[in-house]
């Protein structure tokens, strides 16, 4: 089988080399299309345009904004302004000239509106047919608008800063004065409190002195009174003592008389003999006080009267009991200038804008050929390889050479492998040549590792060859393989992002694109060439492309009997 593969492979190359149309389609046609697309659509990728566009301008404002717009657009190398008297003339200007994609009208009062803080709008009239050119100019207009707004903002910022500084100075002065008042008031408060303390102290001293005098005088009066009372008492006592002594004496005598009576009566009774029992008892004498009592009564009275001592009087005045000093609180001015004014000069809100940066480097400008060389390269690779494989198979069937080769001992598998592998190599070489031409003529970026571009290139060449087999199975005739193959290849290229960025497409189309090898291949190329990602970034997309290619190959193998029936 290897022999068959080798000879069919070589034969395919011989056929290919003899086919001038195929050579044209392989190399010259893609280079021409790439050049045309790259130069004409470069503006889509921000490439500087080499063409001068004329912009009709109607200036009803004649203010600073209008002047800035005119000045700004006049300084753009690719633009030239053409002053027009009115809108109608501007629109007809745009309609009749292909280098005028839009007209600009600056309404009256634009500057006034802008300067008074209102929204100022400049009207731009776009020719839909020249949408892409207009978009490029709109970008420039957008930049200019941002510049004008930024300039005005800077001026406003300066004025605001000056006013803020003045206000800050005034406030600082007010704060200083306020602080002086606060300081004076605090001093007054301190003085007042000192006076109050001295007053309290003096009052306390005087109170204590007066209390002492008062005590002493009272004490003397008491002592005098007590002395008098003592003397008087002593006299009374002496008299009482004398009376008691007389009583005591009497009582002593009475007691002796009792005892003598009792002795008498006892003698009486003896004398009464038998009748003694009849004699009534004498009345009973009360028992005299005991001798001790009597002794007590007779003891001289000893009465002493103590002179009371007046305790030291505490002054009834306490300074702390003085009513609070009703000093009004010092005014607390909370004039915090730092709070009244921000630490720095207040700033106007900044502009919200954007600045392009490449994922991989500082330059956001993309060489349009970085998209179109691989994009159209893949397109032509698909066309050439799909046509090459499918037309080749169908031609061989129609010529009879396929049967002849089979009758000569060539295996069908060997012939298939030979054909597919030769077209794979042709497609691979085609892409390599296109990259080389793109690099040499159009300065395309080959990424960090140009050799890594070979991986997705090999994958897409394989997928294209396998897809050619599928197309041959579907179409089965030369007449149908050309249009169907072309439509399939171009649809696959377009949807897969070969002609424009995938992001331009609606979601449903992007979902379909995931099943197309072109999508993954372009992802790999864009990653390597435009985004400047690491060489390893191409591995997964290339694997996906190979996977889809293998799927195509299986479908082609299953359907290949349809080609030869």
């Amino acid at each position, binding site marked *: 089988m290897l*022999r*068959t593969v080798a*000879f069919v492979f070589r*034969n395919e190359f*011989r*056929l290919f080399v*003899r*086919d001038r149309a195929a050579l044209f389609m392989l190399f010259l046609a893609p280079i021409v299309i790439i050049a045309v697309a790259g130069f004409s659509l470069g503006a889509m990728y921000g490439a500087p345009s080499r063409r001068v566009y004329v912009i009709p301008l109607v200036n009803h404002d004649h203010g600073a904004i209008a002047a800035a717009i005119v000045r700004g657009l006049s300084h753009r190398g690719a633009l030239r302004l053409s002053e027009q008297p009115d809108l109608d003339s501007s629109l007809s200007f745009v309609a009749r000239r292909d280098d005028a994609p839009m007209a600009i009208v600056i309404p009256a009062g634009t500057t006034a509106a802008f300067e008074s803080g209102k929204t100022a709008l400049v009207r731009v009239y776009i020719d839909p047919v020249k949408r892409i050119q207009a978009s490029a100019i709109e970008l420039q207009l957008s930049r200019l608008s941002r510049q004008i707004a930024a300039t005005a903002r800077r001026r406003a910022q300066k004025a605001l800063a000056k006013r803020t500084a003045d206000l800050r100075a005034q406030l600082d002065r007010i704060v200083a004065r306020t602080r002086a008042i606060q300081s004076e008031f605090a001093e007054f408060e301190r003085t007042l409190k000192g006076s109050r303390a001295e007053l309290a102290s003096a009052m306390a001293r005087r109170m204590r002195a007066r209390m002492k005098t008062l005590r002493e005088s009272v004490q003397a009066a008491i002592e005098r009174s007590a002395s008098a009372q003592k003397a008087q008492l002593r006299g009374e006592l002496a008299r009482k003592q004398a009376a008691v002594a007389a009583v005591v004496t009497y009582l002593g005598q009475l007691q002796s008389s009792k005892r003598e009576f009792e002795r008498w009566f006892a003698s009486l009774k003896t004398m009464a003999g038998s009748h003694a029992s009849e004699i009534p008892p004498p009345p009973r004498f009360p028992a005299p006080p005991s001798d001790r009592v009597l002794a007590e009564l007779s003891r001289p009275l000893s009465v002493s009267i103590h002179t009371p001592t007046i305790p030291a009087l505490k002054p009834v005045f306490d300074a702390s009991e003085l009513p609070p000093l009703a000093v009004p609180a010092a005014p607390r001015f909370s004039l915090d200038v730092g709070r009244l004014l921000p630490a720095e000069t207040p700033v106007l809100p900044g502009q919200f804008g954007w600045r392009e940066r490449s994922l991989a480097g500082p330059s956001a400008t993309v060489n349009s050929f970085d998209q179109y060389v691989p994009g159209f390269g893949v397109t032509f690779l698909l066309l050439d390889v799909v046509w090459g494989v499918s037309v080749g198979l169908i031609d061989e069937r129609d*010529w*009879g*050479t396929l*049967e*002849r*080769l*089979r*009758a*000569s*001992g*060539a295996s069908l598998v060997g012939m298939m492998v030979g054909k597919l592998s030769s077209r794979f190599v042709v497609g691979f070489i085609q892409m390599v040549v296109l990259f080389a031409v793109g690099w040499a003529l159009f300065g395309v970026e080959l990424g960090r590792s140009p050799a890594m571009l070979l991986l997705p290139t090999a994958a897409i060449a394989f997928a294209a060859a396998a897809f050619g087999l599928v197309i041959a199975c579907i179409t089965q005739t030369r007449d149908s393989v050309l249009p169907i193959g072309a439509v399939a290849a171009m649809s696959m290229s377009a949807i897969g992002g070969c002609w424009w960025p995938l992001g331009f497409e609606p979601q449903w189309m992007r979902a379909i694109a995931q099943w197309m090898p072109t999508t993954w291949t372009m992802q790999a190329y864009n990653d390597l060439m435009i985004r400047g990602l690491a060489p390893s970034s191409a591995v997964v997309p290339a694997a996906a492309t190979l996977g889809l290619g293998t799927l195509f190959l299986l479908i082609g193998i299953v359907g290949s009997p349809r080609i030869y029936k």
Partner: protein
Amino acid sequence: MPQLCLNPASGNIGTVLAPQGIVDVVGLAKSYGSRLVLHDLSFSVRAGEVVGLLGPNGAGKTTTLSILATLRGADAGTVRIAGFDLRARPGAIRRKLGFVPQAIALYPSLSAYQNLDLFARVQGLSASEARRSCAAALEEVELSDRANDPVATLSGGMKRRLNLACGVVHRPEVLLLDEPTVGVDPQSREKILKTIRALARAGATVIYSTHYMDEVERICDRVLLIDRGRLVAAGTVAEVVALAGEHPRIEITFEREPPPNWCARPLLSVNSVAGAERNKVELKLDNLSQVREVLEQARAAGGRVLEFSVHSPNLSDAFMTLTGRALRDAEPA
């Protein structure tokens, strides 16, 4: 030795061989859908023999050759070529075969030499062998001076010759030729037939499919008449013609309508006198020696003969007789 036999399928008589040849076909059947293309086809070809496969368009000649060339499978029957069973050893058979398809199966953009070289190499020849064989094949078909010209620039006859050369470049034991002279000029046709004869002389077994009976008569040892997928008759040309029981015919064109009964002794029969051309007469003869006698009778009867033609019975007549159908609409120039 060939034997005259009754073809059991068709009921006709022909020469068939015992299955001992280099090509043995027994009970071959093939249909495309409901259309029966081959029905119980059996024949045998000996080594070195040139056998013509003759039949009208759609008779099954190309299908038969395609099956022998291992390009199509048969529904029934067995085929052995060079001792190999076709079903079991198609690869081995391909090495023995040279196949020249009816279409000009060449790469138009490649040169004559490149086409030859490809088929030589695919057939297993080494580079040096291929070089020698290609040169020899080009010499044989007289295209050496155009060896490096793209096929697309060659004339139709040259392409046919190159088509033949590509089938024989590796010197096959068995050569299958499917109408190799269709649409070629007489000169190229002669060269093609000459080449085939040379190959046969060199020992190749040739199965030659055609609907040109004169080619069969000229180069074939035997002929197999096929119609609607069935073998109608087989044998040498003479045997097949004889089998059909055909006689020579003479067609005479008079200046004006000849007198009635001008032919005193009707030789066999006045076959036809066309209505619009009543001055033309066709007669069947017993043999060719009667031509002179007929012409003399015509002159004697006063008829002025403008022209006459004598037609010996051939395979086309035999085919017509055997099948009731014409072999083809027009004979080659």
